[in-house]
């Protein structure tokens, strides 16, 4: 049990995908303008990331390994992720039209979120089992959501602040992201591994 808590802590704080491993930066900068959309994006990404982490593990272990096709893993994972995203979009559209309208264009964009592919590939690198993969993907998604929502909230504040003109807009966003990244570096060594 402690093992899983360690995985969660490690992916959320210590090895945060966005601020420490620098994966999934595009949605991090692109969708963080408004808190509401950031929350929607976090929800969708959490769902897709967890599911695709597990699915790519299953496909790799039970399909690619027995046929010695490990070299096809990248293209297969991309296929798996694309299908997951498409499936999620259909389900969300049916189940919650409101959420669908909030997410809008961002839902298909998850396909190109490198954190999703990154999680699938890192699972292999770390030799994670089924449950490990599940927690690793979920933790990565939680970390992504946490950082995205924090960042969106601070950007909303920054918009109201008196920023010097050369730093207005994305520039101050980048600086904020850098400072947040520095802060997250402080978690190094909190968890073994």
């Amino acid at each position, binding site marked *: 049990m402690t093992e899983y808590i360690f995985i969660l802590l490690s992916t959320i704080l210590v090895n945060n995908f966005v601020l420490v491993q620098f994966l999934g930066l595009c949605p991090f900068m692109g969708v963080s303008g408004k808190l509401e959309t950031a929350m929607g994006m976090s929800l969708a990404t959490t769902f897709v990331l967890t599911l695709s982490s597990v699915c790519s593990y299953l496909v790799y272990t039970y399909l690619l390994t027995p046929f010695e*096709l490990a070299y*096809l893993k990248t*293209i*297969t994972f991309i296929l798996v992720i694309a*299908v997951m995203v*498409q499936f999620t979009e*259909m*389900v969300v559209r049916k189940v919650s039209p409101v959420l669908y309208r909030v997410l809008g264009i961002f839902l298909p964009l998850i396909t190109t979120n490198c954190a999703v592919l990154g999680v699938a590939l890192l699972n292999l690198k770390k030799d994670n089992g089924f449950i490990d993969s599940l927690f690793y993907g979920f933790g990565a998604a939680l970390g992504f959501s946490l950082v995205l929502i924090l960042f969106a909230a601070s950007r909303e504040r920054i918009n109201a602040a008196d920023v010097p003109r050369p730093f207005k807009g994305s520039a101050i966003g980048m600086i904020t992201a850098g400072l947040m990244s520095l802060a997250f570096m402080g978690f190094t060594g909190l968890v073994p591994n």
Partner: protein
Amino acid sequence: MSVLSAILILLALALVFGAVLGFAAIHFRVEEDPIVDQIDNLLPQTQCGQCGHPGCRPYAEAIANGEAINKCPPGGETTIHALADLLGRDFVPLDAEHGEEQAKTVAYIREDECIGCTKCIQACPVDAILGAAKLMHTVIVDECTGCDLCVEPCPVDCIEMVPLEKTAKDWYWQIPVVDMQDPQADIIATDRPKNATDKDEAA
């Protein structure tokens, strides 16, 4: 051999995924007519009901089912042109039965006379009137669509419609409109004989 198995495996995977997506597309299909949304976007959203429908969206649905596109006085000719373009129908002048096109107006409450009965608040389809019982009401100009539904319920007749002045922001070029049914329309001389033969054939 390994090439063959690679191709087969990927093919099988793609087939399974295709089947999943196909199943999802049927199982999670959302019934909605995209044309209704597009028509609704073109309508002015005054919710005034002058077209005979209880709002803009019902009228959009009716248009999608084949109703005439010229029943919207607040939208005027601009809206009819946009609808004609969208639906590939011919332009028809505004149906006078549903009202004349007027300059855009906003409601104005003469606040000294207002008794605070809240009747206009209940009538307003876009919640543009602010106020409480026995307190003075006022109109939020940016929200008011000028539908004049609030004028009639007012027991002391203190609401009037004030025309909005045209500014450089909302002025647009009037596209010259030619009524093809009108034989006097002779913007291009060569159009006239062709129209005449068309009419003869129709008759």
